[in-house]
């Protein structure tokens, strides 16, 4: 069987290196088809006549707990888009309203649970998170906005879930949480919530972070599964379009863990990534595997400057 590792992004330079505007990308979809010769005339008329029902993200302002969120901002250098956009802008009015009101946001229950876990003594060392870190509102303020980070000991990037597990094993003498344990999602949400509104950014100068970024980028444009689609097919080339009932966003990570109405609960980032990969009819990589960590590093960079919205609400 032939496998394709083709950059799915049309109208954009190799591996998305060229910077193009949203509109150029939209029209790029039809324009790039001209290159095909014989059949291009039919495509020209079709491509340009489409007026997608819901093509654009909304023009709306997100204020949570009195803080205005950065939901669109200039993309970092080398980014395929000019502007990075929060997934919030792509959701319906009702879903957006749920996130804007912390009293209605169902994920705040998870954050509250995380606050309790923070104070709970567990493990052989007889400690809680609070024993070492005190008041999370101070010690964890702004911390979650800068993960994944390079971990010099394991020589890998760590995300918040892995960092929590390290603390549990090394400092508390407690067991690591299993992937997607309720407590893992609750505590991760609670810690990231302490960065609400802070612009996301990661430090690529530490350790081998660049190499992980490179690998993540390669994977982002690698087509998987029987449907032969890459992350970039949906979240770059088709951003703003409808795929069945779903309005395709840029696939940003700034809201994770996120409350998903469909799943009626908090959903971790790696759970979401696995779901997207499964939808291409491919085997899902394991949570926290090298592949998913590389993708997390790269995709987090793709959202540089967006406010942390954890816990966001999505459909």
């Amino acid at each position, binding site marked *: 069987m032939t496998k394709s590792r083709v950059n799915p992004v*049309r109208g954009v330079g190799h591996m998305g290196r060229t910077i193009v505007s949203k509109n150029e990308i939209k029209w790029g979809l039809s324009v790039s088809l001209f290159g095909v010769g014989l059949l291009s005339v039919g495509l020209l008329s*079709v491509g340009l006549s489409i007026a997608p029902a819901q093509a654009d993200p909304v023009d709306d302002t997100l204020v949570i707990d009195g803080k205005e969120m950065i939901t669109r901002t200039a993309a970092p250098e080398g980014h395929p888009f000019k502007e990075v956009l929060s997934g919030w802008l792509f959701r319906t009015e009702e879903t957006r309203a749920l996130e804007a009101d912390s009293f209605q946001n169902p994920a705040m229950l998870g954050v509250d649970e995380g606050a309790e876990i923070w104070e709970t003594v567990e493990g052989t060392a007889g400690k809680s998170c609070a024993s070492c870190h005190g008041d999370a509102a101070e010690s964890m303020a702004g911390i979650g906005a800068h993960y994944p980070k390079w971990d010099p000991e394991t020589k890998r990037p760590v995300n918040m879930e892995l960092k929590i597990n390290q603390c549990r094993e090394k400092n508390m003498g407690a067991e690591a949480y299993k992937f997607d344990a309720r407590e893992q999602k609750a505590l991760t949400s609670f810690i990231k919530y302490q960065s609400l509104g802070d612009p996301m950014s990661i430090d690529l100068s530490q350790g081998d972070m660049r190499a992980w970024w490179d690998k993540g980028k390669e994977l982002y444009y690698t087509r998987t599964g*029987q449907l032969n689609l*890459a992350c970039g097919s949906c979240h770059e080339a088709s951003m703003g379009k*409808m795929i*069945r009932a779903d309005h395709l966003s840029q696939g940003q990570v700034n809201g994770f863990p996120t409350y998903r109405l469909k799943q009626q609960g908090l959903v971790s980032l790696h759970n979401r990534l696995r779901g997207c990969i499964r939808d291409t009819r491919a085997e899902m990589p394991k949570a926290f595997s090298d592949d998913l960590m590389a993708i997390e590093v790269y995709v987090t960079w793709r959202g540089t400057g967006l406010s942390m919205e954890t816990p966001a609400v999505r459909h």
Partner: protein
Amino acid sequence: MKRTVTKSIVVGCLAVLASVPVTVAAGGAATVAPDDVAFTDLTVTAPVSAPPGDPVRGAEVFVSRSLGNCLACHEVTVLKKELFHGNVGPSLDGAGDRWSVAQLRAIVVDAKKVFGPEAMMPGFYSNHVGLHVDKEHAGKTILTADQVEDVVAFLVTLKE
């Protein structure tokens, strides 16, 4: 032979057939294996399976999320009673005017052979797939040869 059984049985059969290698699925009837489909000038002239395509079944394959799921990416006005038409690809209204049968067959069999390797549309009767195909779908095409002909027969009816 399955062309002679009633519609509901056919639909059931299709579901089963979808999980069987395509060459076998056609029950030995003249079926062109995916790698043997001949493309000339961005067309596939010869049908990939012998029985003539059925547009009614084709519409079912087109809509079904587990088969074509074409609506995920395409709007079609005659199917407007179905909810949620995507617009990742162009509207297919008038596709039967714009394209010949042989062109439509080529697009459904392997859109990348028509629009180029960077095209988004999956190849529905092609072994040219992405990495790590899951167990359920490994070694199989998305549609069977018969289903391809049915979908093509449906597309031909999309006139404006």
